[in-house]
């Protein structure tokens, strides 16, 4: 298992958060959602999004299924699992504590 770095940690958080609001998105939709909601500031590369999705799927945080769209193409859509919801809460908490800590450092320095 690789060490979770902060960047990856935040990608997980973003994906989980997006899926908690809008379940049943496929990979491309998640990518665009990250881009749009962050006002084009954040962007997830395909090269890190899919490994992250598959890793979270393996960890049981998100579930996946194949659906057939109107145009006949199959797409793999993802949604949050119960474990994933707990994980999201934990990640959010961690994020808030880290970011407030960083803010404090920035203010005091």
């Amino acid at each position, binding site marked *: 298992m690789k060490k979770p770095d902060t960047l990856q940690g935040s990608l997980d958080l973003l994906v989980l958060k997006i899926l908690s609001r809008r379940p049943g998105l496929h990979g*491309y939709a998640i990518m665009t959602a990250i881009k749009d909601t962050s006002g084009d500031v954040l962007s997830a590369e*395909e090269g890190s999004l*899919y490994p992250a999705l598959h890793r979270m*799927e*393996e960890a049981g945080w998100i579930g996946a299924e194949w659906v057939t769209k109107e145009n006949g*193409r199959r797409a*793999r859509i993802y949604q949050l699992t119960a474990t994933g919801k707990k994980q999201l809460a934990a990640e959010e908490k961690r994020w808030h504590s880290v970011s407030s800590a960083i803010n404090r450092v920035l203010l005091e320095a």
Partner: protein
Amino acid sequence: MSLWTRIGNALRGDKLNRELDEEFESHIAEAIEAGRDPVEARRAFGSHLRQREASRESRVAGWLDGLRADLIFGWRQLKRNKVTSAAAVLSLALAMGACVSVFRLIDALLLRPLAVSHPEQLYEISYEGPDAQGKLETYDSSSYPLFRKMRSAVKGNAELIAFTYAGRTDVTYGSDEEMEKAVGQWVSGWMFDSFGIQPAAGRLLTANDDKEQGKEPVAVLSYDYWMRRFGGDLKVVGRTFRIGRDTYEIVGVADKGFTGTEPGTVVDFFAPTTMMGAAITQENSFWLRTFVRVNRGVEIGPLRDQLFGVFHASELERSKGWKNMPGWIIENALKTRLELRPAAAGASGLQKEYGQALMSIGVLVVLVLLIACANVANLMTVLAAARTREMALRVSIGAGRWRLIQIVLVQSAMIAFFAAVLGALFAGWSAPLVVRMINPPDNPVRLDLLADWRVLGFGILLIVAMTLLFGLAPALRASAVKPVHALKGGDDPHARRRLMRGLIIAQVAFCFLVVFVGGLFATSFQKLNHVPIGFSAEHVLTLDTVTTQPLPPAAWEQMTESLRNLPGVEQVAMAGWPLMSGTMHNDFISVHGAPPSDTLAFFLHISPEWLETMKIPLLQGRGFRADDTNPSVALVNETFVKDFFPGENSVGQSFDLGGPPRLQIVGVVGDVSYRRIREAILPQVYVPFIGKDKTGTLQPIGDGTVLIRTTAAATPGLSALLRQTVHRARSEFRVSNIISQQELIDAQTVRERLLAMLGMFFAGVALLLAGIGLYGVLNYSVAQRQREIGIRVAVGAQRGAITRLVTAEIVWRVTMGVVAGTGLGLALSRYIQALFYEVKASDAAMLAIPLIAIAVVTVIATVPAVSRALRIDPAEILRSE
């Protein structure tokens, strides 16, 4: 995703790849739909392959994926070295198959618990006391009165269960003509209850069936017999069968799986012990085996002491009634101790006779397996050596040490697995074959050779052990590769050779041991086969003949007369029983009015024609006449004369038995093997077949053995003709068994023949495998030292010097192996002395057998390598550098 899906993903690699690709494709399609440039979208996405690898890693069980790759890779490697791999697999298969086969036999005979509830609570009473020579002997028979006393003494702590020794008896479900054989065992009525056995039909025996002598003629069939004889017909309950004059009613069938308590015998019917007749009241009649079911929490030690107390008191009481007995008998009887032997796996004569033999064959088989293992280890080392560069490369690009070990171990496991599959087939064929070999002709051994989880577990254990045994050393060596060294092309070749040479010592030592023990078995058998038996067994048939009720001697004479006229029959005689059948009668002898002898003499009732029929020489005096009757005259053997009338003319002398009547010696005959071929010749006394009682009237005879010497060629169908003729002579006569005298003799050396055959077989296999091992190592070492040898030749080394260079070390290792093997052999043979006959392990001749065999094999194995070394052309070698 669960572990199972990940394992599944690893096994369905292609499907997973397709799914990943499809997801990526759909992503790109979305992007294009959203208005992005197709080429740009694709470029942004990057290489599918890289994406796939990254995602794959989280979607499959990594180690399994690696394992799959290693399996494919290992298979290709084995295929590339077809001949060597096949040799390794075959030799290992033979050894593993033999191992499993012997395990099945040992398990079925000695280890497998009986199909009863809590078999671990079962013990068998066994006695240990000195025999006439003061040697400790064990036996396990008790008398019924003793059994009763012991049972009531330990009531509450343990339950005692009595069994007769299971044996084949004549039973009939109809008339006398329809007699057939069935294996019967008379048991305590409460046995089924105590063993927790359920009926498959009807009811089982209970304590109530076993209360009064002769009152409850009931029987329970075994499931096996019920199926075999009646096809599982439920109507069998209520039917009757007859044994002698007793008619038994079948009341039920025991549950499947319970085949009695004697491994090697499958019991057909169980009847209560109280049907054994007068024997159940006789104190001097020892006919039953006793099982003890110890209650939970009861200590064995005190229980044994308690039982011993009862036994000892009973023996003391019994000995007071002994008159005219030599003192040592009473002394020894009182020295006898009582032991409780764990009997979870039952108790049988087969166990006693073959347990040790099987164990020693087991040891030989394990040794052969180790030799085969050493060969495969050598092969793996060579294979791994050829892959040094590849291993180094793997290490350089980041493979861990474990990964390298796994690669080699997977290959070893594959060899072990293939060998196990072949070995299982071999075991499936060979184990029943061995059981058939230990079958005496008239008493088939039936050993349940179940192929169940026990055998499977043993097989798996064997595969794992083998893999580690021959795979671990090469794997560790391969994994310790130093990339810089190896890629430069010059790692340390000596380390590898050291391992292989160490294996040579072990191989030679084990091979020596196997050949040594095999030689001892073979020599024992050969010596036994050449023991002079004192009579001619060739062309002699023995007919055990019974009558519905005792008939006057005249009827027996008429019957034998009618046999005499049959074509192909040369001579006909009568005797109480055949020689060497195991049946015997013995008594003490007292001469010149002295107290009875210390040694016992064997007795046999014979008709006048017996000596001639058996071709036993009459040395002095006369044989029996037609009008001689018992008790009056006797023939004695040479040993009898030597023991009781040394230096005297014995003909005309008289002697007494334990009591009157007095017998007069009318002739002296040659010594014969009376009961067992391995037994020293004892004094033998022959008395007339026809007897008179005290009032002088001829006694009717109920059973006897007709001995028939046929003309050289045995006529086919003679047995049937003999049966008919006996029955036709008088309808009361019936032949219950026909067996040739030779079969009776052969039956006594079955174990020795088996040991000799298996011993020689495994000796041959061991020599072959060791030879292959030697050849392989020598060949490899010559190939490795080509350069060195080439240079030596170039600077003028003679052929003799080269030969010495190549062989010196091997000869040295072989010598070390032989020395180790001799030490092991002498140590081991002490434990199996009982299986030898008149051979001593320390005999020079016995040690010479394996020594010569190994020397020959070594020479044969060395020749190719030496000639290869001598053919090395220095110019060619140096040119190729």
